[in-house]
């Protein structure tokens, strides 16, 4: 089943039910800038040259772009650094203003490591093997000794079978976990608690936490959604969530609102979020969200909704776009 068919589902479903098909992208661009600063755009690429005021990158299409670094801009590369201190050659994701010309925040070589712990080896630097779900395979990450204490405080069950979620750096082909992205759920990955009892009557908006993952295609704007029918997706782990989500399909349009920044966008469901559904955690980015991950966004969508990659989540509401 190819992408054209999945994208067409939205048009066909809208025609059959007599509703508007909806358009992916930010909602009401004029209003979405209520947090200040107008619409955001995510730009990614490899640094060719950087100075305190200017960054030159090569985008994934191979185009060189010159962007102005705002005076208030900050950068992250394993820790907060000055933008000019970023190494040439690193892959950056940037939050930009003014049609993608002015850089406000830079994340360099940032990766997110989410999965179920398979094995842990090592004495000082730990090597952790993770199962990242049926679509993403296995991944091996290194936890340097200096970060292991900080990670284990938020991951008290540091043993096989439990979930792991951290943010780190991608360096020389290997991933280093540096910061915990959440408080580890206390249950084993295969024992997700049931959603709270739901009563008849459709909820218009569902609240929870929205996270990001770097396992999407480059420049893809989309989300992985946990509540998909197992028979439609061929994913035996789908359809699990503790947030009381409605069933949707690949190709459905989700309206996601970042409660913290006030921005909202229509994001298509492009992947099965079977791993996100296993996390029954909260986001405390701007308030305490209800439990459960409602969407796992691609980095582009996440940044354009005003999320900070290093914080790992934002409080979100979803509706059907």
């Amino acid at each position: 089943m190819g992408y054209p068919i999945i994208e067409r589902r939205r048009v066909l479903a809208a025609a059959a039910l007599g509703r508007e098909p909806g358009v992916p992208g930010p909602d009401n661009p004029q209003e979405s800038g209520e947090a200040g600063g107008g619409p955001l755009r995510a730009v990614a690429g490899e640094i060719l040259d950087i100075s305190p005021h200017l960054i030159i990158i090569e985008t994934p299409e191979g185009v060189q772009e010159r962007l102005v670094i705002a005076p208030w801009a900050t950068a992250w590369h394993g820790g907060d650094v000055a933008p000019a201190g970023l190494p040439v050659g690193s892959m950056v994701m940037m939050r930009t203003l003014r049609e993608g010309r002015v850089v406000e925040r830079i994340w360099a070589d940032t990766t997110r490591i989410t999965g179920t712990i398979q094995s842990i080896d090592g004495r000082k630097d730990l090597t952790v093997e993770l199962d990242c779900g049926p679509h993403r395979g296995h991944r091996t990450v290194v936890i340097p000794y200096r970060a292991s204490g900080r990670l284990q405080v938020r991951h008290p069950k540091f043993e096989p079978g439990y979930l792991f979620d951290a943010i780190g750096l991608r360096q020389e082909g290997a991933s280093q976990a540096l910061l915990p992205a959440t408080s580890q759920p206390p249950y084993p990955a295969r024992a997700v608690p049931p959603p709270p009892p739901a009563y008849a009557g459709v909820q218009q908006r569902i609240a929870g936490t929205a996270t990001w993952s770097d396992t999407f295609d480059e420049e893809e704007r989309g989300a992985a959604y946990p509540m998909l029918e197992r028979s439609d997706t061929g994913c035996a782990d789908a359809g699990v969530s503790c947030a009381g989500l409605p069933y949707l399909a690949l190709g459905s349009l989700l309206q996601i609102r970042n409660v913290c920044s006030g921005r909202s966008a229509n994001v298509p469901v492009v992947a099965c979020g079977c791993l996100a559904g296993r996390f029954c955690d909260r986001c405390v980015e701007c308030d305490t969200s209800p439990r459960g991950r409602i969407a796992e966004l691609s980095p582009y969508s996440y940044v354009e909704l005003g999320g900070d990659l290093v914080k790992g989540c934002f409080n979100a509401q979803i509706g059907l776009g």
Partner: protein
Amino acid sequence: MTRVLESQLPILVVLLGLGTVAKIVTVRSGGEPGALSRLGPAVLMPGRLQAPALLLCAAVEAVLAAGLALGTHPFFRWGTAAFFAMSTYVLLELRRRRPDAGCGCFGEVSSAPVGLRSIARTVVLTGMSVVSVWAPVTGWTAATGMSWLTAAGVLVLAALSPEIEELLDRVRYRAPCEQRPGPAESATLARLRASGPWRAHRHELTSAEPYDSWRELCWRFFAFRNQQQDDVVFAVYLSGRRPAVRMAVVSGEDSGSSLPEYSPVSA
């Protein structure tokens, strides 16, 4: 007097049978692994033995039910009495050691924490099975000549069963259709083929098998092609015995602001 002795046999057979079926269904449907860890005697077992323990329990119940229904051998009669006496002890132990766990007597329907009513029920069942030990006829024969004593037994057990309230609550407060796992795709396709819109448009389609099918909220969609290579999409509501069916024809080049060619119709 003999009518008294055999009066409770049919109840025991039916309850043991129900228990077997409910336990097997619970293990088969499984839900999430870990769901069993909140149920029944299985909770007292280590994780990997929980499903086998529940199945073993179901097998014992099935054997006892068959023995009571078809024979008069004292082994099954005393076995049933011993089974319920042991269940009483297990429930007491469960209540003491895991007050949060359900009894699992009827699979996951019995997920409410073990209360005095569940324990009283196994005591009553033990009493019934002891009375039935000396019944002269098989359970099958007893079922053909039921008396008011049987009805009284059913009433007592119904009053002691928290599962009945649980089932009523589930019917009254069902999760909305959007959040329930839907029926199988083939079952929905069969409903579509029994509907009026399908019969009206069947002859236009190039193939009776959909090229794409997906579920969104409470609708399942089936996409077909017609002879002009346009997309014909049917939407079937997933709830109800004669569900609403809608259809639209979308031209092949259309990729956005489409208007349905036919007005929505329902079956």
